[in-house]
């Protein structure tokens, strides 16, 4: 979302009031927007991203990614990181009943993900998995405009799709780590309900490999420059946006009051 208003525009005062009200709303919504896509974690300010080491080791980073890849390509993750409709089950078959992704990744009304995927896994085998996001069914895919599809990719190609903001939902490395380590839809992969295979690393080990990869410059191949910065976390990004908008609003008020006789 582009928050750069043209500051040269002078705002009439009713507009300024509306603007300030909108800012409040924006501040509340900003975490979702700043991330670029709906994120299903209850992100607070508690998350501390892993900084890049002063002496990053490319080989260690590549080895860490190779471990991450084993999880990323497991059906528990892969089934929703696809270009069209989701896949299903340990054998990544076409999802049955037939469903569509939908613009927001939550299906096409009236047959949305939440129609069958409820707030919790069922104890019955082959029932659809579920999880709870703020009391509502939280199952979804990445949206149409940011598919985050990586089926058919591996190695450097997979790594880059995951790492680059253009393909990963506009996430910095800090936000990416936050997603993989704290997002509860990601975490579902390790609590998938009866009869579903688990990813080849346990969650703690996976998180460790994520950190190791980032710490070592998040390398994807043998030659590209290592990353130097992890960027901002969601919380920080939100703060920046809100501050910026407040500054804008303050300017406009000042302008408006000056225009009164």
């Amino acid at each position, binding site marked *: 979302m582009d928050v750069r208003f043209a500051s040269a525009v002078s705002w009439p005062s009713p507009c300024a009031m509306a603007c300030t009200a909108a800012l409040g709303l924006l501040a509340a919504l900003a975490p979702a927007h700043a991330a670029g896509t709906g994120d299903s974690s209850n992100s607070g300010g508690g998350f501390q991203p892993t900084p890049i080491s002063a002496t990053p080791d490319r080989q260690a980073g590549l080895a860490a990614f190779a471990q991450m890849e084993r999880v990323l390509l497991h059906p528990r993750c892969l089934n929703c990181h696809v270009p069209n409709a989701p896949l299903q089950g340990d054998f990544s078959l076409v999802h*049955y*009943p*037939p*469903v*569509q992704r939908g613009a927001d990744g939550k299906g*096409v*009304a*009236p*047959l*949305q993900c*939440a*129609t*069958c*995927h*409820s*707030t*919790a896994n*069922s104890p*019955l*085998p*082959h*029932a*659809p998995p*579920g999880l*709870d996001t703020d*009391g509502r*069914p939280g199952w979804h895919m990445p949206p149409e405009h940011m598919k985050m599809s990586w089926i058919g990719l591996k190695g450097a190609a997979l790594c880059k799709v995951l790492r680059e903001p253009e393909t990963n939902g506009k996430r910095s490395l800090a936000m990416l780590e936050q997603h993989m380590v704290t997002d509860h839809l990601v975490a579902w992969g390790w609590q998938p309900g009866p009869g579903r295979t688990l990813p080849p690393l346990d969650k703690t080990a996976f998180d460790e490999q994520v950190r190791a990869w980032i710490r070592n410059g998040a390398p994807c191949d043998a030659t590209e420059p290592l990353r130097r910065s992890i960027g901002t976390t969601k919380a920080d990004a939100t703060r920046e946006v809100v501050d910026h908008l407040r500054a804008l609003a303050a300017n406009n008020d000042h302008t408006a009051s000056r225009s009164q006789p």
Partner: protein
Amino acid sequence: MISFRLNGQPQQVDVPGDTPVLWVLRDTLGMTGTKFGCGIAVCGACTVHIDGQQRRACVTPIESVAGQQITTIEAVGGDRIGQAVQEAWVKHDVVQCGYCQSGQIMAAVALLSANPKPSDADIDAAMSANLCRCGTYVRIHAAVKDAALALA
């Protein structure tokens, strides 16, 4: 105790929170219009509306709908879309055994609420998650189109 609204009326049940809405309706409250077909949300016989969204009651824990509004087949005829759908169903003699039809009607109402002018492809996409072993799909399709026309 878990409180929710059922067909517009307040309701309270004292059951374990993981009890699916389907069994609260059928066994606790004796409302058997919503049917059990598969238990794993793949047939649609248990379809209800929760806060206006189509949901499968067999996998929805009752504790997750605390404070929400559940609408079942018994009351779906209370609004103009539900009524149009039911009339179309009767006009086309859609039903055979009838067991899937509560779910089919709930799905059709959800479709027409979201999309008042569904194309054939829209109807196929929206209704293909509701199974019918008698094979009434041909008449379901015609009835949905007819209901859409009646509502236009």
